[in-house]
């Protein structure tokens, strides 16, 4: 303690700055670049598919979406004659929307009921197990659904289709002139419904479990039964979230390729009757035609991919906007 004879040196004024250091600048730059990669990738998908499909889109114009003729005509030299050939995906687009809409209308009631059961009825142990199983089911590969649908589910669904045809054929949607029940949009819709049930269930479950506890308890305190509590509190709170989840399922169902390919009979004809074994699907059509497609037809397939990409992007954006608006909203 006595060695302190030297004069006290006060440290100089510390340099205060809010400028980030060099290392931070580099780090932020790298992280921003990584973050922007999703923008870059989506942009590149748009540019490249558009570039490859441009020639076909220009020669077909609006007919690419409204026409339902897919004919490749070659001239004498063996090259594809673009002006004589016609590419139109209307039948496939209608089929895609039909299958997806069918899937959503089957899956939504089941998923919502299941989510309600898991959130408000299930005992704790069952809830844990079921949530894990449903998450696992969401990760099942689509080819598995396809093969299971083809070998196991299809015979059952055909039987259901015959029953529906027998009793409900007065509804225009279920009408059919030729009785071919195999590989119909109805079968594809049921397989897709089973594929999207886990997605819709987990989104709905998450929304339902965010219901403000005080309101739930208030309803019970006022003497509500479980059902009247759900109707008065949970459903008004979670309604738009369920809609968002359904749209996410719709997006997934529209982009599905392999599962639909295995259970759907692709026919180039606009068909609204879901029970007839003739349907369409853009993604499956791309897979089907790709194998033997020449250069020009491949370009047309790229254009079809672009349409599919834009369609799913639109549906998903709407869905995500709805879901993120619901989360944390109080009324």
């Amino acid at each position, binding site marked *: 303690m006595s060695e302190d004879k030297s004069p006290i040196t006060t440290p100089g004024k510390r340099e205060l700055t809010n400028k980030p250091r060099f290392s931070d600048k580099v780090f932020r730059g790298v992280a*921003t670049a990584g973050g922007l990669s999703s923008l870059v990738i989506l942009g590149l998908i748009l540019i490249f598919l558009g570039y490859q499909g441009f020639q076909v889109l220009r020669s077909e114009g609006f007919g690419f979406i409204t026409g339902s003729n897919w004919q490749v005509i070659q001239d004498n030299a063996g090259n594809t004659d673009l002006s004589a050939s016609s590419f139109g995906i209307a039948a496939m687009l209608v089929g895609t929307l039909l299958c997806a809409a069918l899937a959503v209308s089957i899956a939504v009631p089941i998923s919502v009921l*299941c989510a309600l059961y898991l959130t408000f009825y299930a005992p704790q142990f069952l809830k844990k197990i079921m949530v894990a199983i449903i998450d696992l089911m969401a990760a099942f590969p689509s*080819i598995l659904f396809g093969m299971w649908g083809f*070998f*196991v589910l299809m015979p059952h669904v055909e039987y259901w289709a015959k029953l529906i045809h027998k009793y409900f054929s007065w509804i225009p949607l279920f009408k059919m002139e030729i009785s071919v029940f195999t590989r119909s949009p109805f079968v594809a819709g049921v397989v897709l419904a089973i594929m999207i049930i886990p997605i819709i269930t987990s989104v709905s479950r998450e929304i339902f479990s965010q219901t403000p506890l005080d309101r739930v308890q208030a309803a019970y305190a006022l003497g509500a039964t479980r059902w009247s509590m759900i109707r008065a509190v949970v459903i008004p709170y979670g309604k738009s979230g369920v809609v968002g989840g359904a749209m996410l399922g719709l997006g997934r169902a529209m*982009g599905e390729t392999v599962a639909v390919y295995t259970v759907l009979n692709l026919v180039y004809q606009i068909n609204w009757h879901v029970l007839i074994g003739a349907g369409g699907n853009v993604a499956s059509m791309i897979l089907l035609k790709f194998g033997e497609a020449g250069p020009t037809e491949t370009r047309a397939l790229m254009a079809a991919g672009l349409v599919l990409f834009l369609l799913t992007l639109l*549906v*998903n954006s709407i869905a995500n906007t709805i879901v993120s608006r619901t989360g944390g909203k109080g009324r």
Partner: protein
Amino acid sequence: MSNLTLKPTKPWKRTPKQQLLIAVNLLVAAAISFVIVLVTPMKGKLAYLLLFFISTIIVNFAENYFKSGIAAAKDSIATSFATAGLIIVIVPIFSILFTIFERGRAGLNFGLFLHDMKSNGPNDPLGQGGLLHALVGSGIMVGIALLISLPIGILTAIYLTEIKGIFSRPIKFLVQAMSGVPSIVAGLFILSAVVFPITKSSSGLMGGLALSILMIPTIARTSEEVLLLIPNDLREAGIALGGTQWRTISLIVVPAAKSGLITATILGLARVAGETAPLILVSGGGDAVNPNPFHSPMGSLPFYIWKGFTFGTPESIARSWAGIFVLLSIIFLLFIAARTLSGSGEKK
């Protein structure tokens, strides 16, 4: 002081009498449905199930109506429907698992992991050939996808949670939009952007690139959720000790979130391991083991399954089921690994 001890009770638990009543209700409903099937022209399993469901509702409704009034009766209907919803979700899951087990068993043998299909056609007897080439190919392609997506995904998550720059909201939106990109579009994109203009041939690298497009959003979204769970105190402590943002994140935040980030990675792997459509388009599908991702087509597990299925003979389809068995076992193991890791992370 009496030695009266109060035991915790569960007044909401069903008494034996109530449980008996539930069982009686179900039995009555079953009997009703049986009688209806017997006397009316409705036949078959479907009729049994439907009638059983309807009669359960009616019996429960009647019981609750006479015991506690209309509100309780309505509640019982809702309970029946919610339970039915759960059962309808469970049935396909177990049907799928049972089918895989039943049909995959025939094609499973140890030689599957030792041989490829170089000298065997899909129609050969089941003992010959194997899926080694598919396992190697899937491993390489998923590995390439992981190498690309892991840095991009985690950087995106860091940008969204730590840097929170001006692009945060649009990027969040775009990542969500990207997770909805159909898998076939990812394949077409790689085809149009890389295969046609540059390489002009399919290879394992192309498959890996296509898979990474599907993997990035999964990793980014899960990592973002994990990083959001890290308490702000840790970040403040790091800054207060004089760390720069880079050092705080790399030495404190990311290590704290390690198990969650590994979970995110595993979920990403499970997401792409079974993708079929893009691989059919861009990776070709060789029958021999091909360890070189830059040259010549490469087989993969989903492609192996697809090939067996489209070939259409009983042997080739049995091969497909065996392939699905292997693929789903891998996905299942990945899932269990992810669950255990995230579970142990939460306990700390």
